[in-house]
């Protein structure tokens, strides 16, 4: 990884969510969420599975259609029916738990395809941008490989480079390390840490508490479709106020000593 690349600063935009509701049939997953992420801020969403944190993240770039509420993303009103969603998504990078690299394209093509087809960048410029971002994630020499020739951690780093190649002003991470072998988690977190240092606005759904504590400006604990507690990362994780937060963190931070009620 070349150092001058990791020091690049980003043009950042924020997120503003008001009164967000989302249901699947009778099952209400999000019960009125208010959430603000300021430009350049790193916010981690934590909580038990089924708490709605992934759904919330997927609502931000409208992969899920909310039932009610307003979402503003970098100057776009995402819930306006007339908004150009494709234009908006170009500015919002998304990293998935399962990487979702395009298996029929090389690593380099994964990073250039949207630049040329969507942003209409000339091939040479797209390639240059892709190479810069592959260098940034430490995979500059892997451009000719296919995704299935890489480890999980490498694939996820390519997925990050692919998203960065669109020059996003906001990055969404949906449990980016949950599908990884333990020994490759660190390399992905290292990339994310360097993005945070570069001033990227990041909204991260994660179970990596030490990462959240160290990197996040703010942590939001969700349970049952509502925000239970939020605040500076060190306070929420180090000294949680709500019983549900305390219980969750105990289970996550010390899983060998969880007691099961008979």
């Amino acid at each position, binding site marked *: 990884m070349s150092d001058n690349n990791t020091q690049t600063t980003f043009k950042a935009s924020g997120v503003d969510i008001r009164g967000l509701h989302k249901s699947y049939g009778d099952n209400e997953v999000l019960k009125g969420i208010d959430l603000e992420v300021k430009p350049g801020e790193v916010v981690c969403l934590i909580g038990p599975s089924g708490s709605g944190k992934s759904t919330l993240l997927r609502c931000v770039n409208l*992969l899920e259609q909310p039932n009610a509420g307003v979402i503003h993303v970098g100057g776009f009103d995402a819930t306006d029916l007339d908004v150009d969603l494709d234009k908006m998504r170009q500015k919002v990078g998304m990293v998935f738990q399962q990487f979702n690299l395009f*298996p*029929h394209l090389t690593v380099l093509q994964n990073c250039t395809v949207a630049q040329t087809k969507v942003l209409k960048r000339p091939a040479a410029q797209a390639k240059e941008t892709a190479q810069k971002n592959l260098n940034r994630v430490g995979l500059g020499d892997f451009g000719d490989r296919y995704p299935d020739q890489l480890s999980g951690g490498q694939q996820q780093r390519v997925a990050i480079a692919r998203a960065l190649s669109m020059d996003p002003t906001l990055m969404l991470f949906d449990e980016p390390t949950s599908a990884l072998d333990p020994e490759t988690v660190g390399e992905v977190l290292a990339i994310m840490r360097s993005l945070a240092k570069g001033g990227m606005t990041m909204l991260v759904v994660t179970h990596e508490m030490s990462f959240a504590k160290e990197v996040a400006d703010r942590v939001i604990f969700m349970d049952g479709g509502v925000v239970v507690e939020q605040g500076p990362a060190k306070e929420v994780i180090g000294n949680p106020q709500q019983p549900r937060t305390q219980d969750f963190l105990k289970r996550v931070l010390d899983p060998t000593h969880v007691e099961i009620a008979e």
Partner: protein
Amino acid sequence: MAMTTRQRARLSKIIQIVIFLGVIVAVVLQVDWRILGDNFFAFDKLGPIFPELITVGLKNTLYYTVISFAFGLALGLLLALMKMASFAPYRWFATGFIEFFRGVPAILVLIAFGYGVPTAFPGTSWPQPVVVMVSLGLVSAAYIAETLRAGLQAVPKGQIEAARSLGMPAWRAMVTIVIPQAFKIVLPPMTNEIILLTKDSSLAFILGASMAQYEMTKIGRDGITSLGAGITPLIVAGAFYLVITIPLSLIARKFESRSARTKR
């Protein structure tokens, strides 16, 4: 005498081979080789059907297959997309079409378009290649539609989500991300479809066309009555079908192993 499992397996294999060879020998002994030769392998009498079997028959078989497949593929893709559409009437139409043309014998469709259309609409008469293309195209479109739909739906949903997240419109995600991956999935069943079409093109014989429009089976059948070589002309015509279909299978297999390398 007790036998080990391995000895028993070997004995079983030997018995199978003996029975197999026995059946073949019995059949061979029953055959009257002189009559068989006169009726199945009288190649010396085939002079009159050459070169027409190739210059007309093989050419027309290929021609009918290719135009029917092109029409069937275009229509089949349309039907597959209709079947996946959110607008319900599209799905109903596609389902009805597919069930109908998949369930009716191709020969009935050929008769309907070859004789039914000129009768129902006096004055309209399609040239034979058009009748074949429309009839076989409609039937193959029904099969192709189901194959394509299965292939398109086999591409994981995360691929579309990733493409849309990069700002691709739905059609662009389809064209650039989904269809290339679906192509690899549908290649083997698609090869099947072309091979079936190649053989179904022989049904064109019922349309009773002029000599220039004969395909291989028609020429072979006419040869039976005119040459006095038994069904030898059909045997030869059959061999030429294999000349088309076997290379097709080989090409498809080559494609498959190549895509298997890039996508395990």
